[in-house]
């Protein structure tokens, strides 16, 4: 009996050990792709000197598990859209803008405004769309107030239906969530603040190759009575060009050390930056900037602290492609 007990215990330990080993070998899912169960409490000692353009001195604490560091990653080339004034007019019509005075076209975008300039669409040549009702967006108007807003779930449905009906919801867009956008009014001599405007921002996220596309902007603002009062998308088309070697996690950490943390600049001068999450992702450029390919990045996510008090979130991106990969892609 005692022998059986010992054998059973050994078997359990072996199975647990094997299971643990297998799990350690398997890559994790986004956003912690590449993370292992192996807890890493890596701490950077104080960094001082000309790190961030000033006499910075702060400590970086990494409080997250050590991520896996794949040798290669799928890289996507950006497909530059071809947009015309006709496309811009079609976009305007989706938002019932038909009475416009002029179409302005530049290198970056095509803009159509209503004659009274109160509504506008933009079609970005780098892949993006924009609609705004200036009389409603960010402007207290008596309509966009809490009591007129749909519920969050209703807002999601309204936004999604609106986009689908107009062919504006691309494949791959995933519901991200909602936030309540608010404007606060206060009297100069009073501490009392009241919400004078509110809408619901419904946003969508994007993944490629099982990894998050950072910088994606795809949002719809739902105002009072379920009206769509603003829409903005920075959504580019990509095509895979194969796998390319990337920098290791450790080398990206070294880069981060040299580069510093942008949030560490400024008069508040945090004494500590915590890194609570490290993962591989892609980073898309803002819509104003051209993009040759979708950049893989190491993402360091955490907080800036001063006297253990949070000064705000920190999110630093370190480009992951090796120089050779970049050179190869550019040619």
């Amino acid at each position: 009996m005692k022998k059986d007990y010992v054998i059973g215990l050994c078997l359990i330990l072996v199975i647990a050990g094997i299971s643990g080993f297998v799990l350690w070998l398997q890559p994790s899912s986004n956003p912690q792709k590449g993370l292992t169960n192996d807890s890493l409490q890596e701490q950077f000692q104080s960094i001082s000197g000309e790190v961030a353009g000033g006499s910075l001195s702060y400590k970086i604490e990494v409080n997250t598990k050590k991520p896996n560091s794949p040798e290669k990653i799928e890289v996507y080339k950006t497909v530059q859209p071809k947009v015309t004034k006709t496309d811009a007019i079609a976009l305007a019509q989706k938002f019932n803008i038909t009475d416009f005075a002029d179409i302005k076209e530049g290198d970056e975008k095509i803009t159509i405004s209503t004659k009274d300039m109160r509504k506008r669409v933009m079609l970005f040549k780098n892949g993006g769309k924009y609609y705004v009702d200036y009389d409603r967006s960010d402007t207290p108007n008596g309509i966009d107030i809490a009591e007129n807003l749909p519920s969050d779930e209703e807002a999601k449905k309204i936004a999604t239906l609106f986009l689908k009906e107009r062919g504006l919801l691309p494949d791959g867009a995933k519901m991200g969530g909602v936030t309540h956008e608010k404007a606060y009014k206060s009297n100069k001599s009073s501490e009392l603040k009241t919400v004078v405007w509110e809408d619901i921002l419904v946003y969508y996220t994007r993944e490629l190759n099982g990894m998050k596309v950072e910088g994606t902007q795809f949002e719809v603002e739902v105002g009072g009575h379920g009206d769509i009062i603003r829409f903005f998308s920075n959504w580019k088309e990509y095509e895979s060009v194969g796998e390319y070697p990337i920098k290791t996690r450790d080398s990206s950490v070294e880069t981060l050390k040299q580069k510093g943390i942008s949030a560490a600049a400024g008069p508040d001068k945090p004494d500590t930056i915590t890194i609570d999450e490290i993962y591989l992702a892609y980073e898309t450029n803002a819509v104003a900037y051209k993009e040759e390919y979708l950049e893989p990045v190491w993402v360091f996510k955490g907080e800036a602290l001063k006297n253990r008090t949070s000064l705000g979130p920190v999110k630093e991106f370190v480009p992951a492609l090796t120089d050779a990969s970049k050179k190869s892609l550019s040619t």
Partner: protein
Amino acid sequence: MEHMITRLSLFRGIIALLIVTCIMSAVSAANTTNATYFSEITSKDKLSTTGFEAIQQNQTECPSPTITGRLLICRSNESVIAVYDRHGRKIFTAEDLKKGASENVLSQFSTHVNERVYGSNLVERAINGQFDQVKITFEQYLSYIETGYWDPPTPAGWAFIGDEEDTSMYWEPDDWSSGSHSDYHAAVFFSHYGHRSGIQTTLDASGGQYIRIAVGPKGDNPLEIFLDDILIGNITDNFSIQQFDISSRSWTTTSILKIVAAGGSEEWGTGSLVENISLMASDSLSDPVSMFDGNPLFGNAPLNVSFTDTSTGSPTSWNWSFGDGGISTLQNPSHVYTMAGTYTVSLTAMNAAGSNTTVRSGYVNVTAPAQTAFYVYAEGVGMYHGTQNDLSLGNQTPGHFYNLINGQCGSVDTEKCWYGRGIYLDDNAGSVHWSAAEQASSYADNADFSVFVGHGWNNGIVFGTQNSALELSRSNMQFGGNRAKWVTFFACDVLNQSSQSNWESVFNGVHIVNGFDTHGLLYEGQGIKYAQKLTGDGAEDRTAIRDAWRETLQETINKEYIKGAYMWANPCGSDYLPGFGDYCSAPTKGGQGDYDITWRNFNCTIS
């Protein structure tokens, strides 16, 4: 119904009888009257004989009145003693007839029948009275005047004066006053065998002189045209217009044009027509002397100037040149000068005798519209953030913004223009250009729109390239007042929600403050983009100041942890850059001297 038809038939019969009676009377007059009379009428006069009645009843004044056409001729023993016009006004008397009568005319007069009125007296009268331009004496046998009716169309280019009931001859001195007939000296119509005919004398711009004669039926023989008894041509066709050049002929204002239509036939009737026409104006007609006034003569564009013709010599047409390419042929035109400048105005006044031009150099002075000056200020601290890939953005961003706003005049209100108050880049000296401590007029305190690009925190901004450089808290900044109505901080955290109430203290006239609620980052082209949105340059449509800020960040920042923010004093939240759209005149106070301030942050990216 039958009763009505009967009454209608009776009515028609009465009308027909009246017409026949009238025609018979006319024919009778044609056969029995052999008086020649002198007739004058203007287009303003209506044919009326009501004025005759009083004269006719005055046997002493007019013992034997005879109405001929629209003249009342008073005779005594078959001699004309006075002639009245249709309004009862005495035109002249027998004594008048003796005045100024030339032998030539008298001779001609004597060749006609007894009751002829001496025409030259009437000419004089017209000169001193109603008519002051071309004068034509007109004589004709009455028999050909009152015998017909108008039926042919008016010859092209000729004016018909009067109504169809007026079968008398008349002439129209004002006929050539319109532009298209400015060179017509006179046009005369008369009825010849019941058809319209006419005579027109013409001076063209090059000095050519013509007589144009239009005839209905010419009669059996060609019309003979005499100038001072010299035959100058014939008209052989019915219903034709023929022109005779008299440029090479010597003629004077007393020359007589005579048209003789002689002969008779069954078709055209018998009798002859002799027309004597004094070709040209009186001796008093001469070239006009052009002169004009304008009002106002100076002011800002657009300047509407009213010009008044003060020419003498009775011009009949005018050519104005306003000096900016504008012209007019009106007598008293108005002209709008849209561009600043000094303009020379000229007027050419013309009449039958000639033309005269007056040029007034530098007569109108138009100044540029009154501009309202606005000022932009920008300051940039280099080495913005050590983590950014381009450390020069701290200078580029304010530089681009400043240079694109400075010198711009509004697209909506062109009278509002922007000038530079100053730009300070990479200011190692640590000057406090936003502080009350420095009152220099070139600093942010005295600009309408101030931009700071550099380090910031939730209670102020930092100057210099070093983070330890001089800090300036918002309590020491001088916004509002006379200037700094719109302020933008490309600086971290200046509008943190947690310190919203701190910034409310700066709202002493500030309309809008743009900034970041969180950490902020600079990206290439933000200064350009922001300025272009404000002014509507490039592919941008002009955008309100708050919206321009949000859109600039939205299009350039892909970091989800960065939030922009703005505060505004009501009702200035929708302000455009002055000149490029509406903006509020001043923030309103919410009560008890306090402003209502609204704060709002927004995600640049959310993913």
